[in-house]
Each structure stands twice: as structure tokens, then as C-alpha cells.
């Protein structure tokens, strides 16, 4: 169990949950940033 933050994560996790690899979140962050920056550049 992690007790470092406000959100608690335990060892036992539901096997049915959709598992996302951490890299996908990093890619999603970069993609969202690039899309919004591009929109700001095109219309701003």
C-alpha cells in the first residue's frame, strides 16, 4: 500500500480494471498540449 499521497493505492487491484501503461499518459499529455498550442497558434 502506498501512503505517500492523498489518493490511496493498495496492493490488491481489480483484475477487471482497464490497465493503462504510464507511457500512454505521458503521450496523452504531450498530445493534448501540442493540439491546444496548435489551436491557439492557428486561431489566437
Amino acid at each position: 500500500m502506498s501512503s505517500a499521497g492523498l489518493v490511496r493505492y493498495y496492493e490488491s487491484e481489480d483484475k477487471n480494471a482497464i490497465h493503462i501503461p504510464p507511457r500512454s499518459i505521458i503521450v496523452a499529455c504531450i498530445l493534448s498540449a501540442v493540439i491546444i498550442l496548435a489551436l491557439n497558434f492557428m486561431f489566437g
Partner: protein
Amino acid sequence: MTEHPLIDRIEPVLQRLPAISKPDGHVHFRRKLTWTIGVLLIYFVLTNVRLFALSPASQDLFGFYRAIMAGSQGSLVQLGIGPIVTASIILQLFKGADIIKLDTSDPRDQSVYQQLQKLLIFVMIIVEAAPQVLGGFLKPDPTLAASTGLGLGGISLLIFIQVCIGGVLILFLDEIVTKWGIGSGVGLFIVAGVAQGLVTGTINWAADPTTGLAVGWIPRFVQIFQTFTVQQLLSTQGLIFLLFQGDVLAIISTVAIFAVVVYVETTRIEIPLAHSSVRGARGRFPVKLVYASVLPLILVRALQANIQMVGILLYNAGFTWVGTYQNNQPTSGLMYYLAPINGPNNWLPGLAQNPAWQVALRSGIDISVMVIGGVIFALFWVETTGMGPKAVSEQIKDSGMSIPGFRRDPKIIERVMQRYIPKVTVIGGAFIGLLAVIAGFFGTIGNVGGTSLLLAVSITYQLYEQLANEEVMEMHPMLRTFLGE
């Protein structure tokens, strides 16, 4: 497993909520560090991505609570950790008051608990984003609305979607740091914001629109010493000017908080332990003065922040019976008394706008809320995180340790722990709450706020301890097996 009709009904939804996959085995210290720094960099990038189609006339609903809520006004991470904090308050209160009956030592209930908190965070993202857009804090750009043909409603929806995406990204970034990195994302984002505020408050030479002096205290000192002579500054008026406008009081207060927090972090009662079967194997169980950590303080301040946000929204909607506001600062009514003190401007005679009795009442309420709230949330925190006497005695027994001079019965260990843990939790919670209020009274460099600075210093100290532990474990892999990793 505990029976709970409502939770049982939503369990199929909870089971399908996405989660960051866990590492298969041990993650090397260097890899953990890379993930932590990587997330921090991504976070800084996101705070600089301006929301598309946002009008510059928008206001920050979080205002003075920005340092606690993290994120950045008008950016993709507009909500910061707000939804996580609010969801945590609700869950702590519900679990603490035994409304949600979940046994967090049971694996199935653990899984339900962590998915329930995620669902609650998703709900809070919507609950916190919607009033900002609908309440006119995040305004749509009218020229863009006309030129794209989407209209103000369409553009507002676009802003709402972006804010929600930012909220979800913050949630998952926090999960990445917890599972793959060191510490937690929430702590990291608070420290990042406070550190940025401190640097800006030290070296920024841009002029403050209200005083005309530089924002940073170093260039401000240079300006002051160029404008006034030493004799002028040493007069009573000059000294008062230096103390408040020159930020001397804020510098003293900031240094004092650093020193006190680091001292308090190292203050602890140590309960001796000895291994029952391995002779000579000894250890200590530390009960720190701030046993419940400083995180419960975020919850108390966030509760005050949420009350103020409701006040601002009501005032903007034309309801003045709860209080009136000027530049999002409460000036009268119930909301004035419920607002925390943010620096000497709010209480010092001559600087504060309101009559002395009103200031005294507001200060009294602030101190009471922080001290009592600090104690309540600390007690709840200890129970929900498995740091209570019962859970600790089980852990000690499972590790094969016992208290020398006492029987190896968990009930006996629990009784010894019962003597210390609840008392230390109450004293620690009250002390840290009072410390945060005092820090808030005197102000800090860069106006980061007393509570935020206290949180940042404490989180950094704990991060340093964690880094040291990780490094030791890398050097001595035997320790890892001993600690059950």
C-alpha cells in the same frame, strides 16, 4: 467483505475504471527518479499551456488557495489537484464517520475503496469545472465565438472539455508518481508551485501594479536602497516600511517556518522493538510529533477554500446575504469571518480595512478551524491509512518484532501503542494547525501562503528521507527482501 447496498450496486462500474498498470517487479531507484522528474517536467509544460478560446477577462476562482490547489490559472491544468483534494475530504469524512463501512484490511474492500475514490475524483472534476465555466470565471473569447461560428455556448463547452481533460491528466500523473516514482504527484505539484512562487518572490524584477515596487524582494531591496538614505530607513516609519513593503517580515516568517518544520519533522517518540527469534536484532518504531503528516492540513484549508468558492459564486450571482467580495476577497458578511487570514494586510491595525472586533473574530475563527480541523482530520487520516494502534500492532507482530519486556501478543502491543499514538496525533494535529495559522498571519515570500509553505517544506523533507531510503535499499538489496518488497 463488508456489505454495502449502494456500493454493491455500483461495483460493476467501479471495476471498469481505468488504472495505471503497476510495475511487474522492483523498479530501480534511477528509473523511479526518471519517472518522478519526467512527470514534474510534463506538469510544468501543462501549467504553461493556455486553454484554447479563453478570454483574457477570465478570473481565478481559486485565488488565494492556488498554492494549495496547484495547477495554474487559465492553463490546461486549471483545476490542479482541487478534485483530488475535495474527493479525499468527502471520503475521509464518510469513512471517518463510518458512513461508508469498508474494511481496508480486506483485499476486496481495498479494491472497492480505491476505485470509489477514483470515481469520486472524476465526479469532482465535473463538479469543479462546471461552475467555473457557467459562473463566468472562465469566459469564452467572443471574437473566436463569432469567427468560428460556434457561438459563446460552443466555445464554453470547448473550454469545459479542456479543463476536464486537464483534471483527468493530473489524476493519472499522480498515480504514475505513486506507482512508478518517488512520493506522490499531489505532493510534487504542491512543492513545484510553492518553489516557483518563492523563486518569483525572490528575484522577479517586474513592477507590482499596486505598489510600483519590484515583485521579488532582492530587486525591491535594491530599489529601496537606491531611493532612500540609510538614515531615512532607520527612522520608525522607515523600519515599518522595510518590515511590510520591503518584505522583511515575510523573509523572517519564511525562514522561521523552514526551521520549525524541519525541527518538528525530526521530533519523535521511539518505541523500542526487538526481534522475537533473532537475538540482537533490534529496531525502533517512531511516533513522530506530526504523526499524521501535514497532508490533513490540505483538507482543512481546502474545506475553507470550497466554502469561499461557494461564497464567490453566490456573490457573483447576485446573492449578497452570505457576504460581499472585492477582487475575490471577502469584505463583509458570514464569508468574511469564515475566510482564513492571508498576511498582515488582513489583521494588522492600520492595514486591515475592517473594524478591530471583526478582525479579532475572524482571527479567532481561523485559529479554531485550523486547530480543531487539524485534529479531526489527523485522527481520520491515521485511521484510514492504517497507522492506528491496532493496525500498527498487527504490522509489528507480522514482522516478528515485539516490545522488550512485554508479551508477544498483538493486544498487548496495541495497548502500548494506544498510550502514545492517539495522544501524539491530537497534539501533532493541533500544533501543525496552529503553526499554519501563525505562518498565515505573518505572510511569506512570494505570497505563497503559510499553509502551502509548511506543506512544501514538510513534503520536501519527507521526499529527502524517502530518497535516502531508496538509495540505501539499492546499495543493500538484502534490506529490500527484509522489508518485503
